[in-house]
């Protein structure tokens, strides 16, 4: 079994009186596609937002293992550092592209930290100093690479806002990948996609995984989840219901009960049998 890249340890998130996430623990392993599933309101996006630094968890730890050894505590780290230092990238449920900028520009913004490591370098570049030119060209190359991977090369100079929905989703993934992440977190990437687009998405995610980037996704499309995930975690009402391979999850009666809304899991066994 591969080593855990990211360990979520008793993560808790409380919003005033509402306990959205209750002591959830799971591992994301390198070289895996991990899926976080559960009925609506289960707390999946909340967990995501904690991992990616948009919420500060009320309790628990999120530990990211570094390649050189050592650990980073993600809980409470500012969002931008989680991407910059811990190399965790994400996409959003409601696509957040830079609509007024072109497809290429979106990908270039993602490589901001590579091309402009600090403000001083950035200002020096105004006067033509520094190796800005080489860095920018390398960035364009990487952008081109990802444009090819997601099939958007033809549309590189179009404003991102004018792209059709499926293309926008792919662009968001390409943009996240341009930050060279070690974990790619996707919030409902298959939402609104037709079957052909879902297949393309599945192929893309699997190739990303094969290249060495772990994938963590929230998804409602069970077809996609079962097809590509190596590891599935089920949440319901902020609590972890199950954790295992897709086959194990499919047979888990608590999971089925949660989705079908049955009170007593024994009734489900009757129905399913």
């Amino acid at each position: 079994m591969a080593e855990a890249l990211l360990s979520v340890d008793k993560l808790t998130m409380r919003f005033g009186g509402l306990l959205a996430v209750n002591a959830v623990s799971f591992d994301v392993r390198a070289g895996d596609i991990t899926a976080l599933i559960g009925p609506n309101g289960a707390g999946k996006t909340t967990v995501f937002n904690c991992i990616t630094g948009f919420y500060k968890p009320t309790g628990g730890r999120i530990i990211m293992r570094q390649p050189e050894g050592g650990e980073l505590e993600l809980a409470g780290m500012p969002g931008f550092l989680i991407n910059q230092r811990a190399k965790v990238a994400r996409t959003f449920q409601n696509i957040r592209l830079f609509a007024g900028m072109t497809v290429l520009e979106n990908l270039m913004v993602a490589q901001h930290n590579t091309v402009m490591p600090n403000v001083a370098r950035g200002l020096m570049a105004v006067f033509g100093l520094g190796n800005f030119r080489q860095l920018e060209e390398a960035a364009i190359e990487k952008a081109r690479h990802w444009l090819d991977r997601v099939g958007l090369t033809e549309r590189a100079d179009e404003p991102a806002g004018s792209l059709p929905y499926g293309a926008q989703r792919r662009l968001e993934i390409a943009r996240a990948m341009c930050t060279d992440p070690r974990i790619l977190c996707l919030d409902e990437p298959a939402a609104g996609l037709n079957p052909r687009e879902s297949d393309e998405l599945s192929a893309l995610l699997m190739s990303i995984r094969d290249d060495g980037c772990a994938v963590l996704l929230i998804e409602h499309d069970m077809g996609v989840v079962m097809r590509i995930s190596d590891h599935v975690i089920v949440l319901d009402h902020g609590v972890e219901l199950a954790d295992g391979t897709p086959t194990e999850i499919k047979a888990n009666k608590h999971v089925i009960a949660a989705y079908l809304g049955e009170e007593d899991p024994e009734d489900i066994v009757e129905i399913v049998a």
Partner: protein
Amino acid sequence: MFVTTQNPHTGGSLAYALQQLINGITLGMIYGLIAVGYTMVYGIIGMINFAHGDVFMIGAFLSLIALTGLGMLGITYVPLALFLTLLFAAGIAALYGWTIERIAYRPLRGSFRLAPLISAIGMSIALQNFAQVAQGARDKNLPELIPGGFKIFEENGFVVQLSWMQIVITVVTVALLGLFTWLVTKTSLGRAMRACEQDMKMTSLLGIDVNRTIGLTFVIGAALAAVAGLLFLLYYGSINFYIGFNAGVKAFTAAVLGGVGSLPGAVIGGLAIGLIEAFWSGYASVEYKDVAAFSVLIVVLIFMPTGLLGRADVEKV
């Protein structure tokens, strides 16, 4: 305003503080009335109505016109004159409020945040200069209509006074705010306003006339501002076309301090600003009293970005 004619440093310190408290609360009420207009409009359409302070100024001028006119017509019974003036000023100011919204903001609604802001600034400049051109650039003074008051208590020769004018301001403000709270919580208009605040599209889909609701929000805000104008005129006895800017910025500060979108916040913010101003003028320096109020605003926003009573806007990620 007769309460500040005493030497601030000869009297007893408790008495002095109490006087500042009274003055501050009175001033705060006026700011509060104006602040309510700002916070209502911001709550419902998310824009800063820059011209609101100038509607307050117009209200003050309208009051002046009415009182002068009534005086010329021979109606000198003060309560009647004030009542008629209040109706006149609030009514005409309501027209102003509605028209301003209709002309300068409604066409820009839902577009682009900065355009209504510039439009509002333009409207503010236009109103100020309109008043200057129409009514003249000089200060206009009104003799004291509600004189006198009574001593509260005395300490070491410093007399703490509560003037009738201050009582009138308090009573009128409390009554109006009470009426307004009833309106917002118990009537269908109030419900419509609150619905619009939450989700405008949904509200219109439910059959509520959103344009009318927003228009009425402006109307009510303008009317309240006009009453504040009348009270200001009576309290200070002197107005000019520029009072809108200063009072407007401070009242907006009050609204933000209390938490924009929160009605009790606007009132509390108004009182806070009034008290800060009074105490700073009384104890530190009069010149820097505006700076004191603004500094408090900045400090509060740094540590409590949504104001004292504001809702924390949790943006959906």
